């Protein structure tokens, strides 16, 4: 044991910093790797020492670095996670350096083995970090107090911390850095006391984002901005038809472009490597490629929907049955039966930064500079594909220009890596906007059928919800809460006898992925449409109608907060109406009122969007607001215009002229009202998107006297005209 402590001090002496647990200094070199291996993992693992502390590095000169496991895709997680650490460690947020870093599960106490701290999706970052980050920082703060007290031989209760210092009686102070070399002799405390929320100085107070300054001055390094010595640019040409292969290539014209370094080929794509992107693109235009021709060339949008419709008669899997009534009434016996079919279009992510990645194979290693929401999975996939040890797959993180699920896709990185392995220099692969759209991992199309039984007072007696899907997507990471049930099994209503099942249909050969709000976007559109529709049949106010469905207290509070801030039922008829939708998903509650107009010249104007949200305890209020505003705008874009069409087996939409998104002139005035909650923080990032379509559809439907059961909305509004 003693021996181990000595080897640690040697380690400290060499690096000049105490690296808790198994943190490497960023850009860790081979020497540090070796030192890390030397410092006896197994023994510390037994003592749980390695759990302290993956998130924080303190140097002797009191320089503090936070390592954040989440990927910043604009949601403000670097700021929120740093706030949590700074609060519990008691340091000035402005004085710390912040880095994204992969943190393995075994470095963290109490992590469930199948949880991936580095996976950024499902509006989950703050919720996921809330406990482990506070725990890590609180443990460290307690040990700092203990060390200072031991120095003075006093009780640690007589010391307190303040902005990176331990303050002891008689004005004796120690910087954290001064104490750090002595701390390793301590055991990690068995339990820690978190700060009382009433004492928070950072959490809950609006903090400026830590990344604003560099971003607005154009100094942030995104994937395309990476410069490495000897680096070339790669542009991959693949068939717009998924699965098609190359028959013949004539690259003589392409080779004539100056600056072309290499033209690499595999059976399905060609990679042009040039000294800059423009030249690579020019060369690509001069390639003469004969494709083998895939049967997928027959595929078009209507065939895809036809396949989904066939799912109605396919065998299905029951996933959820909310049988709160003691007697389940058979559909046939019910007073009235509604059957509504819901179609939601395929979507692009259309993130502003086209996909890209930089890959460098050297010395039996693969180094990647990536913007991926799932870096640990990527690491595994690369290691597996190229038969490398995971330690030899080295990831570097760069800034990401939006994602919305786009960067959960890893296919493009794995494709690029095949080419990168063939050359001896780093390659910065860039997809053109058109290639990004052409290769997007599409949000799949949705078809849901509802059969709703009601009694003679039009109260719901049973709902039979059947979902048609192309992917059997039971979430393997979290089998108890499948993706398919998002927003549904937590619905804020008590609907008796709600039965949900799904059928898997013959999937077209397309690259499908995950969209903003995932399956919650799908379910909430269906569910809220149903509720609004039934309210109309019962001639009840849609919000009052929801109250009859037994909203729980948090749901009620959100609705009440919204109603306190919005003049509901401001318009009873005419060209301007209000639409409502709400949801309980990712642990949070959201309610939205959209005020929209269809002008006499058939222009859709969205005037206002008022949102009330309960996302538990709020870490960074201004950013919660910003996330809600932004996700509402994203959802409104999708709801009004979002539609991918497939023609001849290819995605037809290739740029923003064919894929309309909201711009400033379309922008409603979005107001966010937040419930002051003491629950644990829950999801925020996608909430607005999830409720945008049903609320907007409701408003536009009231204007036109119909219900929109399909998306996107704009073309249906114009058809009506």
């Amino acid at each position, binding site marked *: 044991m003693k021996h181990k402590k000595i080897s640690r001090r040697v380690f400290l002496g060499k690096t000049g910093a105490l690296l808790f647990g198994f943190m490497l200094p960023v850009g860790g070199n081979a020497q540090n790797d070796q030192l890390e291996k030397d410092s006896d993992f197994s023994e510390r693992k037994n003592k749980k020492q390695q759990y302290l502390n993956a998130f924080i590095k303190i140097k002797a000169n009191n320089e503090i670095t936070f390592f954040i496991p989440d990927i910043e895709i*604009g*949601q*403000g997680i670097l700021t929120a996670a740093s706030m949590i650490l700074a609060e519990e460690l008691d340091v000035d947020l402005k004085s710390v350096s912040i880095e994204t870093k992969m943190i393995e599960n075994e470095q963290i106490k109490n992590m469930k083995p199948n949880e991936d701290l580095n996976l950024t999706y499902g509006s989950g970052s703050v919720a996921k970090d809330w406990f482990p980050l506070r725990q890590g920082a609180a443990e460290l703060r307690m040990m700092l107090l203990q060390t200072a007290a031991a120095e003075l031989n006093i009780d640690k209760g007589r010391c307190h911390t303040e902005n990176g210092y331990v303050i002891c009686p008689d004005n004796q102070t120690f910087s954290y850095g001064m104490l750090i070399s002595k701390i390793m002799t301590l055991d990690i405390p068995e339990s820690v006391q978190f700060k009382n929320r009433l004492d928070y100085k950072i959490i809950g107070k609006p903090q*400026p*984002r830590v*990344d*604003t*300054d560099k*971003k*607005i*001055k*154009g*100094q*942030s*390094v*995104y994937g*395309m*901005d990476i*410069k490495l010595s000897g680096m070339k*640019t790669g542009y991959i040409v693949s068939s717009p038809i998924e699965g098609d292969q190359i028959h013949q290539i004539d690259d003589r014209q392409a080779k004539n472009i100056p600056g072309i370094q290499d033209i690499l080929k595999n059976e399905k794509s060609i990679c042009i490597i040039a*000294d*800059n*992107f*423009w030249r690579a693109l020019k060369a690509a235009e001069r390639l003469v490629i004969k494709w083998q021709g895939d049967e997928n060339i027959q595929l078009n949008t209507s065939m895809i929907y036809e396949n989904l419709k066939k799912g109605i008669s396919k065998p299905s899997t029951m996933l959820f049955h909310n049988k709160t009534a003691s007697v389940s009434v058979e559909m046939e016996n019910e007073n009235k039966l509604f059957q509504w079919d819901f179609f939601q279009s395929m979507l692009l992510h*259309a*993130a*502003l*930064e*086209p996909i890209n990645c930089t890959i460098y194979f050297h010395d039996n290693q693969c180094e990647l500079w990536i913007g991926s929401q799932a870096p640990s999975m990527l690491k595994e996939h690369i290691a597996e594909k190229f038969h490398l040890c995971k330690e030899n797959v080295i990831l570097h993180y760069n*800034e*990401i*220009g*939006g*994602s919305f699920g786009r960067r959960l896709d890893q296919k493009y990185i794995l494709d690029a890596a095949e080419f990168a392995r063939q050359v001896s220099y780093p390659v910065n692969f*860039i997809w*053109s*906007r*058109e290639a990004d759209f052409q290769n997007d991992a599409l949000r799949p199309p949705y078809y849901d059928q509802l059969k709703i039984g009601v009694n003679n007072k039009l109260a719901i007696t049973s709902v039979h919800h059947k979902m048609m899907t192309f992917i059997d997507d039971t979430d393997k990471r979290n089998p108890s809460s499948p993706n398919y049930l998002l927003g549904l099994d937590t619905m804020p209503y008590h609907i008796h006898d709600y039965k949900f099942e799904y059928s898997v249909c013959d999937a077209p050969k397309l690259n499908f992925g995950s969209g903003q709000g995932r399956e919650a976007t799908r379910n909430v559109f269906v569910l809220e449409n149903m509720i609004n529709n039934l309210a109309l049949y019962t001639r009840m106010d849609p919000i009052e109608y929801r109250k009859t469905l037994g909203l729980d207290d948090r749901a009620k509070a959100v609705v009440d907060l919204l109603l306190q801030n919005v003049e509901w039922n401001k318009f009873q008829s005419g060209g301007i109406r209000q639409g409502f939708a709400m949801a309980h998903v990712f642990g949070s509650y959201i309610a939205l009122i959209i005020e929209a107009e269809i002008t006499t010249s058939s222009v859709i104007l969205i005037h206002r969007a008022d949102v009330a949200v309960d996302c538990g305890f709020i870490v960074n209020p*201004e*950013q919660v607001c*910003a*996330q809600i*505003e*932004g*996700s*509402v*705008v*994203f959802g409104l*874009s999708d709801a009004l215009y979002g539609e991918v069409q497939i023609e001849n087996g290819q995605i037809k939409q290739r*740029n*923003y*002229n064919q894929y309309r*998104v*909201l*711009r*400033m*002139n379309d*922008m409603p*005035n*979005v107001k966010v009202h937040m419930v002051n909650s003491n629950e644990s923080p829950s999801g925020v990032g996608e909430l607005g998107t999830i409720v945008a379509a049903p609320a907007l559809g409701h408003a536009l439907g009231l204007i036109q006297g119909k219900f929109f059961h399909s998306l996107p909305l704009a073309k249906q509004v114009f058809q009506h005209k």
Partner: protein
Amino acid sequence: MISITVNKKKIELDVPLDMPLLWVLRDIVGLTGTKYGCGIGLCGSCTVHLDGKAVRSCSIPVGDIGNREIVTIEGVGEDSIFQKLLAAWKETEPTQCGYCQPGQIMTALALLKENDKPDKNEIIEAMTGHICRCGTYQRIYKAIQIAAGIMDEA
């Protein structure tokens, strides 16, 4: 060989004349604050100033620049109106992923230089050429108003 003036520096270049200014700036001059989003002038991420006017650098061949002065996001640091925009941007915090923001700022800067008190429609008209998928338009709008010293609406 052609020469262009970027951020007050004259630069000699040996590039094809049809190469878009965007790629010249990013890949030859090494100024990566100007972003590529769509390549056909639809998204505004590549906005730079050409003799003070906001233009889409993805759609201007470098051979067409002549002796007009190019200013990129890297070259506006000293500008007093940029400083006001910067402060306003920090106040309203429109930045999320940040990818569109340098372009948005370049257009806002050109607008305020030409018109120090733009009205609502003038701001919207100038900024509608930009796409922000994070949906930060409302905060950008407010930031421009603050930078211009206008505070009209709730």
